[in-house]
């Protein structure tokens, strides 16, 4: 049943007409004023909040932009950062090498002082003192570790003398390697028998 049929069946037009003719009461003026005042105040208070938030939003935007610009300027004025080589994990020295370098430096210092580093080294520092004893200073053309130095390689004669000293010391492999290098550098060289 639709609404039109409802009205036709459920209401009497005479009753409604009589009621509408007689019911003429209106809202008192003071009630009107109270409701309309409340409505206006509600809108005005909301407008005040909207004005405040309307200022806060651009202010926040400007502050964010200013901070970003300052950060960019600060970064552009910072000198280029060069990471140290030691940060490279591949090139990082092994602990044994570190100890070896420290031992060499210590041996050099004792050499300058004319002392034996093995005598004054603490008992637990044998690992560092052992390589230093191998490089004891001698009046020879042999370098501290292996092979001939550049001074010995200046001429074929001194180079050969260095090789002979290596052989005498039992470093035959090093002497053989130096001999091959000597023959490559001086092809006309013939080793004396």
């Amino acid at each position, binding site marked *: 049943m639709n*609404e039109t049929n*409802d009205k036709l*069946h*459920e*209401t*009497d037009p*005479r*009753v*409604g007409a*009589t*009621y*509408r*003719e*007689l*019911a*003429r*009461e*209106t*809202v*008192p003026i003071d*009630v*009107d004023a*109270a*409701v*309309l005042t*409340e*409505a*206006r105040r*509600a*809108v005005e208070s*909301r*407008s005040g909040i*909207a004005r405040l938030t309307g200022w806060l939003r651009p202010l926040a935007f400007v502050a964010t932009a200013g901070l970003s610009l300052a950060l960019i300027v600060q970064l552009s004025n910072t000198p280029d950062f060069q990471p140290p080589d030691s940060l490279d994990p591949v090139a990082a020295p092994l602990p044994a090498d570190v100890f070896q370098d420290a031992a060499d430096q210590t041996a050099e210092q004792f050499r300058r002082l004319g002392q034996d580093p093995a005598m004054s080294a603490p008992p637990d520092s044998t690992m560092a003192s052992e390589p230093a004893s191998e490089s004891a200073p001698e009046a020879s053309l042999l370098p501290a570790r292996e092979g001939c130095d550049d001074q010995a390689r200046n001429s074929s004669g001194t180079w050969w003398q260095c090789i002979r000293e290596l052989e005498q010391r039992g470093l035959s492999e090093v002497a053989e390697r130096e001999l091959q290098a000597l023959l490559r550098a001086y092809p006309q060289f013939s080793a004396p028998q």
Partner: protein
Amino acid sequence: MTWTNTAAIHAPAPLCGPRDVAYARRMTDGLEDSALMLRYRDGDAAAFEALYLRHKDSLYRYLLRLSMNPHTAEDVFQEAWGKIIRARASYRPTAKFTTYLFRVAHNCFIDHLRRSKRHSGHSDAIPELAADPANEPERQTEQLLARQHLEAALKTLPDEQRDAFLLYEEGGLSLDDIALVTGVNRETAKSRLRYANAKLRTSMQGAGAGQSSVNRTPP
């Protein structure tokens, strides 16, 4: 009591003076209730004024007849509009505004009854209509008698039937809307409205007989 003009919603204009208020009223005359409420939600006070002027008297009369007490009607009237004002931000035009308005007022009245724990039903509390000097004395007497009979008949109606009748006459609500406002199903609302009309019609017929006797009475 429906507004079918679906004019576009204009941007709210700030009100500066009486001429601006009159202009705003003209601009809002053709707008639907829900459109006016949405404009008020967005800050247009003139839209609320137009909406209020459309429905204030019918809502007041509904509450006046329902409560049978002018002071109660005024209190509940202000409370209902106040709720609508405060809840404007959450307003959604999912139903007719009149249904929304009368539902709020109905609930406010129910809350008022629960608070006061009593229902003042004195028909003599309703103020008398002011006499129109242009009307003849006989006509005034007829109106007064008819009103007395109608008010007496309304008073005798059960609250639910009177509520349904007033929602139909003052709010212009359909059976579905009456059912929605009063919280009952459609058939119950239909039954209440039917019984109310039948009783009022019977009362009106008795008033007509009495009115005839009054007219026959010599001055």
